[in-house]
């Protein structure tokens, strides 16, 4: 069993399970699935100043979502330590070639390339751009757009929201630009 669970999960198992998070949260307490609101709640809890956007009662409105985020981190730990596969990720051959041209080795035992995500890489210009600027843009953009991949691309689209469709098209436009225009320049 553990062995079977430790192998990488195919899309047709993972996708439907992720989709079920939406009804699980609705049934648990009529909550709408969206992880990025936690950035707002954490800002309100931790960072100085109270602009209007952070003036909300994060304990009342955000406790459930922060609890879920803690669960996500716990799930990441369980998956990485208890269900570790040890086999390299099976990346498309063409992607292996393309990331090699960025100076990044194909996947090893881990999920992330050391060239960017090892803590030492933060001392490089590229590491700073990818992690610090990339993280900043994710936080700024998801707050501005009012949602991220979960809130817009899953919950919003599943609920037939036009604003979410526009946001998702933006996610994709930005992602394509980052991979095809920015990555070659910073590498």
């Amino acid at each position, binding site marked *: 069993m553990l062995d079977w669970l430790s192998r990488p999960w195919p899309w047709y198992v993972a996708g439907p399970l992720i989709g079920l998070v939406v009804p699980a949260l609705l049934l648990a307490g009529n909550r709408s699935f969206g992880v990025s609101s936690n950035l707002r709640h954490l800002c309100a809890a931790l960072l100085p100043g109270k602009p209007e956007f952070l003036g909300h009662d994060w304990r009342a409105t955000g406790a459930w979502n922060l609890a879920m985020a803690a669960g996500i*981190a716990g799930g990441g730990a369980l998956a990485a330590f208890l269900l570790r596969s040890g086999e390299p990720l099976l990346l498309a051959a063409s992607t292996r070639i393309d990331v090699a041209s960025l100076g990044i080795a194909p996947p090893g035992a881990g999920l992330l390339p050391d060239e960017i995500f090892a*803590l030492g890489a933060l001392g490089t210009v590229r590491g700073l751009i990818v992690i610090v600027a*990339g993280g900043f843009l994710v*936080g700024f*953009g998801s707050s501005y757009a009012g949602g991220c991949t979960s809130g817009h691309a899953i919950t919003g689209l599943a609920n037939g929201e036009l604003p979410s469709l526009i946001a998702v098209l933006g996610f994709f436009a930005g992602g394509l630009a980052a991979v095809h225009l920015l990555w070659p320049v910073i590498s």
Partner: protein
Amino acid sequence: MNLRSGLLRYVAIGLLFGIVIVKSEVVSWYRIQEMFRFQGFHMYGIIGSALAVAALSIRLLTRAQRRSAEGEVIALARKQMGRGTRYWLGGTIFGLGWGLSGACPGPMFALAGAGYGSALVLIASALIGAWVYAWLRPRLPH
């Protein structure tokens, strides 16, 4: 509601979600590169099937007027379109960060739990991004 036991169910849902996104490699920078280069079906299969299951579930729950465990009738709030600027512009800014780092907010938390120290730097940077947005918000078009 008993706050503590009330929150535990959200921890449990997050736990399962975190396991799924790590074991299906959604959290991997490599998979995001593969997706934005249109070189693999994996991510599209995941997002597409998640979307289908979520859409069907929402329909079933709202048609049946199901109540949540807290007793209220299940309903999702509609998003305000306004001028729509926030959606395309904010979405594009988010996408740039997603394509650069290969991580969106859910995966950031999962990666931090999985022991990647740089994920904590990602989360801290995202918090500063959200904080800067909070201050600029009155001056940005929405």
